């Protein structure tokens, strides 16, 4: 027994979980079974610390075609088409080996989307690293960006947007979240449930090797610490060329109606894909590991079952169609092997030729993991450090330039120019040209969709509930700026160790905030992913719920950018914007971060979004920009830099709302839109006029903090990121 105890602990199972497995099997599991249980009962696969919380999220809506539980969620976009989308993390692999970790993160999310029969049409990414002055952070940033580019560019899916933040709590545990959108004919979409006793189980794509073994349990569900190099063999290696062939092959198979169901092989490889397919279909599956094409001849059955080799898909096929399926795979020069059969036993049976090497009830394996209640406790005050990089008596001009040059606010051109943003002929608004990416979908009724991804972990750390609501509001505001109305939302919850009280409290509060915002905005959550145990030696990361939102707009030709477009136009402020320095980028630079954030009024932000959206759709605005990191001064500078057109603005209206000059300039908070256009039009919208475009300087009147800075000077600061790497 003592040997067994060591083994299951080594695999990440607790003693009581092990005892429950013994009880469910009526005997002790053998090595194959123990390996499979340890993976499917890991946090990564079983969501054992988050599933109960996630039940709060609203998942239903008129436009929802597929909700949580499938490989990806999907919303109806009319004319018989749906947009599938999902965001997923690949944090721990990227912290160990950033290039391959990020590349395979993209590969995995692409497979999730084409597994339901959708052709991937866009990628976005949300990245978090430690501060830029750390060599480790620069290494991780460089590797992750190259990895994302390598995979996405090679496979011909455009990368249309994203965000990167640099904060010291991510120093040891970077975040790499990738989101993919796909377009599908609704009636050709396929679910992952296995069905039809006697149907064949076919493994397609790459052969199976020893890479990624134990990734789900050892890497994805434990904290990172010393000696991570020893984990390098558990990081998967990506091959985008193989994925490109498997993608085209799967889409052709689905178009020809040759598959009953389809599932990608992600974390926990064959174990989770076969288990989940059987569970969803209420059937059993027999798999013969001797029939799995291998990279190395002497692999053990447990290794074959848990390998996380990339670019593999599992399909259920009627026996009469197997030959045709294999022929299509051969056309695309990708592997295929009939490795098993659907049964009515309710058991997952693993065979090596005629020998049974493992046999477990599907119910126990897939749904038997105990779900845990969190034991949340709010921490006392601010648990993350502070460091000062801007002196307190810095003048306004110096402050603005420091904010624009701050890596989290500065232009990410260095990164997004490494991504193909145009392949596919759909990209109407490319990165940095508007607050959200806009893609034309001539196939759909709405003719265009918009997408945005957001999640400022620092603000969530200040107040997990209010900060998460802000993340959802920011996405909604970004969509409004291009004239889009939200259809659905996906999320990736990146948090620390849920077994500790503070991260548990952050998670609990954040999910409540997410549910509240989605409920009040009427935006359904169609899918998501949870990544816990994101901690380094100094403690947990900032709690980081990353929100990806998809919306639609009626005409891709009538949208709006964030840059000023003409001289001598009016500039106006719209929405319930009450800026404060709490949790702001300026508070960070000054080393004055503390817990607490003002609450946002979701209903009035929603109403401001509707006003902006309608105005954009009516072609009434010259520019629309959400006021976000760095406050109004940074938003003005961004609109000015992008156009080369200066502005003259008086912030008195914000001072009348009770803001200090500093809060008016650099304060942050939800609900603010910066608009430019015709004076009468803006006034009619209820916006407050604050100035005019023109000239080559940014001139801001804010009482004793008034100042003027050249657009060129601001631009140099804003474009300084690449030079510092």
């Amino acid at each position, binding site marked *: 027994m003592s040997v067994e105890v060591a083994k299951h602990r080594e695999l990440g199972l607790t003693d009581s979980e092990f005892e429950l497995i013994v009880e469910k099997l009526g005997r002790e599991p053998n090595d194959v079974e123990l390996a499979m249980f340890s993976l499917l009962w890991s946090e990564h696969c079983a969501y054992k610390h988050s599933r109960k919380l996630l039940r709060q999220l609203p998942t239903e809506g008129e436009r929802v075609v597929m909700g949580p539980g499938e490989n990806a969620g999907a919303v109806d976009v009319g004319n018989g088409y749906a947009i599938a989308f999902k965001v997923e993390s690949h944090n721990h692999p990227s912290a160990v080996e950033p290039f391959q970790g990020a590349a395979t993160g993209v590969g995995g999310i692409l497979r999730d989307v084409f597994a339901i029969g959708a052709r991937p049409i866009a990628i976005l990414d949300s990245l978090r690293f430690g501060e830029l002055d750390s060599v480790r952070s620069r290494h991780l940033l460089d590797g992750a960006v190259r990895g994302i580019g390598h995979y996405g*560019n090679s496979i*011909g899916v455009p990368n249309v947007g994203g965000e990167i933040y640099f904060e010291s709590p991510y120093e040891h545990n970077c975040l790499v979240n990738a989101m993919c959108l796909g377009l599908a004919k609704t009636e050709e979409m396929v679910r992952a449930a296995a069905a039809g006793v006697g149907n064949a189980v076919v493994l397609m794509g790459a052969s199976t090797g020893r890479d990624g073994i134990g990734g789900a349990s050892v890497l994805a569900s434990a904290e990172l610490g010393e000696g991570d190099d020893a984990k390098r063999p558990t990081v998967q290696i990506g091959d985008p*060329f193989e994925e*490109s062939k498997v993608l085209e092959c799967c889409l052709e198979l689905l178009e020809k109606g040759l598959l009953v169901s389809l599932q990608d092989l992600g974390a926990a490889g064959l174990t989770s894909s076969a288990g989940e397919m059987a569970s969803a279909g209420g059937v059993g599956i027999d798999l013969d590991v001797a029939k799995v094409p291998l990279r190395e001849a002497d692999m053990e059955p447990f290794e074959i079952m848990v390998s996380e080799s990339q670019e593999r898909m599992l399909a259920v096929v009627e026996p009469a169609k197997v030959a045709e399926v294999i022929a299509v795979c051969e056309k695309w020069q990708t592997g295929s092997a009939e490795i098993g059969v659907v049964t009515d036993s309710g058991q997952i049976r693993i065979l090596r030729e005629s020998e049974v090497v493992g046999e477990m009830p599907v119910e126990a394996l897939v749904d038997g993991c105990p779900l845990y209640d969190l034991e949340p406790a709010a921490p006392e005050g601010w648990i993350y450090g502070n460091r000062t990089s801007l002196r307190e008596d810095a003048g306004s001009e110096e402050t603005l330039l420091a904010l624009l040059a701050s890596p989290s606010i500065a232009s990410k051109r260095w990164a997004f120019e490494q991504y*193909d*943003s145009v*392949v596919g*002929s759909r990209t*109407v608004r490319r990165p940095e040209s508007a607050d959200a990416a806009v893609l034309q979908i001539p196939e759909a009724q709405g003719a265009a969709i918009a997408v945005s991804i957001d999640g400022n972990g620092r603000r969530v750390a200040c107040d997990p509930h209010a900060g998460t609501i802000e993340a959802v509001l920011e996405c909604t505001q970004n969509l409004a700026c291009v004239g889009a109305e939200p259809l659905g939302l996906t999320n990736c919850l990146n948090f620390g160790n849920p077994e500790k009280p503070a991260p548990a409290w952050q998670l609990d509060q954040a999910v409540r905030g997410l549910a509240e915002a989605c409920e009040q905005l009427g935006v359904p959550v169609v899918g998501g992913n949870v990544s816990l145990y994101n901690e380094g030696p100094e403690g947990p990361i900032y709690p980081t719920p990353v929100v990806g939102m998809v919306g639609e707009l009626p005409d891709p*030709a009538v949208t709006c950018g964030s840059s000023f477009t003409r001289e001598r136009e009016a500039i106006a402020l719209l929405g319930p914007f009450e800026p404060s320095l709490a949790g702001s980028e300026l508070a960070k630079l000054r080393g004055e971060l503390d817990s607490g954030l003002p609450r946002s009024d979701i209903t009035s932000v929603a109403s401001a979004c509707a006003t902006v959206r309608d105005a954009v759709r009516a072609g009434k605005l010259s520019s629309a920009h959400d006021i976000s990191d760095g406050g109004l001064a940074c938003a003005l500078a961004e609109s000015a830099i992008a156009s080369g057109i200066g502005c003259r603005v008086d912030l008195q209206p914000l001072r009348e709302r009770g803001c200090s000059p500093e809060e008016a300039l650099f304060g942050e908070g939800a609900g603010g839109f910066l608009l430019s256009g015709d004076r009468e039009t803006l006034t009619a919208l209820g916006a407050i006029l604050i100035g005019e475009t023109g000239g080559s300087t940014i001139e801001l009147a804010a009482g004793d903090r008034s100042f003027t800075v050249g657009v060129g000077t601001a631009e140099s600061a804003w474009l300084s990121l690449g030079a510092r790497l």
Partner: protein
Amino acid sequence: MRWGVLQFPGSCDERDAVNACERTSAEARLVWHEERDLDGIDAVVVPGGFSYGDYLRAGAIARFSPAMEAVSEFAAAGGPVLGICNGFQVLCEAGLLPGALLLNESLRFTCRQLDLIEESSVELTTPEGGKVDTRLSIPAKHGEGRYYAPDGMLDELEERGQVAYRYAPGQNPNGSARDIAGVRNERGNVVGLMPHPEHAVDPLTGSTDGLRVFEAVAAAGVAA
């Protein structure tokens, strides 16, 4: 007018190329890499992407495909051929175009909208006598696009008018020799360039200047 657009495993921009051909009021179809038959096809696009994963060297495997054998014969007979990005690399590997494409000077993939100058052997003038604007706004996106040929060969290419496109001054994204973005063969019927004219055919996605590239290549073949 009917275009054939080659499709290799790993091609990325082939559907965009078909769309672009159709926007020039021509027909277009995909040609699978194992096809040898180009019957009924008046012009060929070798599209962008990562044929065969660009393993070994960009374009080095695709050049041996049956479809490329057919394209070599088609080009020898004077048929118009346009190679874009990976297609340009394939045409260089196949010896249908001079020179080679090396890793970008930055050693990074770069995606950027930029201006190209259309090179012409004759100085075009407007009816009023002004110079015709030969600038095209077209995106480039590649990691191995630095045009290279020995100096002597570059001199010869310039003398024979084989430089088809140059990056506008200051906009060379990859360190290409003499800002060369695209070249043609001696007869003028085979043209290759790194930037992507098929992604500049729709005002909604940025520019329609790419249509001129397709039209010019189609015309070059007729004259050959």
